[in-house]
């Protein structure tokens, strides 16, 4: 049992990651298609419901998620310079911001659910069709997005441990790079979700 010769490199890994992200774009694309069709059909209801969302929390979450994307990029730039300490700090901040994002999401969701607005609720089902669909899209789209955020945080925590034990280091940073790529994609998805859900009025 001889160890296999290493025959792949970082560019392969990065190509795999990009291809995966492209499939993610199409995955979200399916939801955006539904959104496009139903918002055309029920434009008045969509605008009305959109103004009921908490725009302050939405804007705050957008700003911090963009910032976390920035710190993730910074972390990669630092590790390539060999500054492992600051790379770890940047990565830690990214993960923390992710957690804050989820907490805000939780507050936002609980407020809506507290008002009896959630998919399948009797209260929502009595509203206009367009409102039912808007809120269903809101919960599903932000829910799936939040799930992606959760995965991203978990990955970053693993990478932080790898930074500590030396698996990820300046000349072996591909895992960090791929994790950051994934995080940036999560950011891009939110960049589109934000105006579509919160800023329709």
């Amino acid at each position: 049992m001889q160890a296999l010769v290493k025959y792949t490199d970082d560019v392969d890994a990065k190509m795999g990651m990009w291809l995966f992200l492209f499939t993610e774009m199409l995955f979200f694309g399916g939801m955006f298609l539904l959104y496009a069709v139903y918002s055309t059909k029920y434009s008045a209801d969509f605008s009305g419901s959109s103004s009921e969302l908490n725009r302050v929390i939405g804007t705050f979450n957008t700003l911090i998620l963009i910032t976390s994307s920035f710190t993730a990029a910074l972390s990669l730039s630092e590790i390539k310079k060999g500054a492992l300490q600051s790379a770890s700090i940047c990565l830690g901040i990214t993960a923390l911001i992710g957690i804050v994002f989820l907490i805000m999401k939780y507050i936002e969701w609980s407020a809506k659910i507290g008002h009896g607005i959630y998919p399948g609720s009797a209260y929502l089902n009595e509203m206009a069709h367009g409102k039912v669909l808007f809120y269903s899209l809101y919960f599903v789209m932000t829910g799936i997005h939040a799930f992606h955020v959760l995965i991203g945080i978990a990955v970053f925590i693993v990478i932080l441990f790898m930074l500590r034990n030396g698996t990820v280091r300046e000349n072996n940073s591909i895992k960090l790079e791929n994790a950051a790529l994934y995080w940036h994609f999560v950011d891009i998805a939110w960049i589109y979700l934000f105006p579509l859900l919160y800023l329709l009025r």
Partner: protein
Amino acid sequence: MLSMKQKEDTRSTGNGTLIFTWIALLLLTGLTVWIAGVNTDRHGVAVNIIIASVKAGLVLFVFMRLKYESLFFRLILLLIVITLTAIMALTFLDVLYR
């Protein structure tokens, strides 16, 4: 091809560029919220989608380092955009003319 492989990619984006991009993204977010506040018709939404695309472009090319990647990656991105557009257009051929 094996000989052409590079072990790792040492090019790094300067922190100045990253900070500049970050600030630009924050400002664009502010702009988009402002537009939504003053412009209440459907044009506001269209403008906001365009702004979102500019922001996505900044993230892709600077943060995700697409500007350093080979042409292949950019072509695939184009392929995805075309695919999504085609799906949307063909579906709307049904939805709009039904």
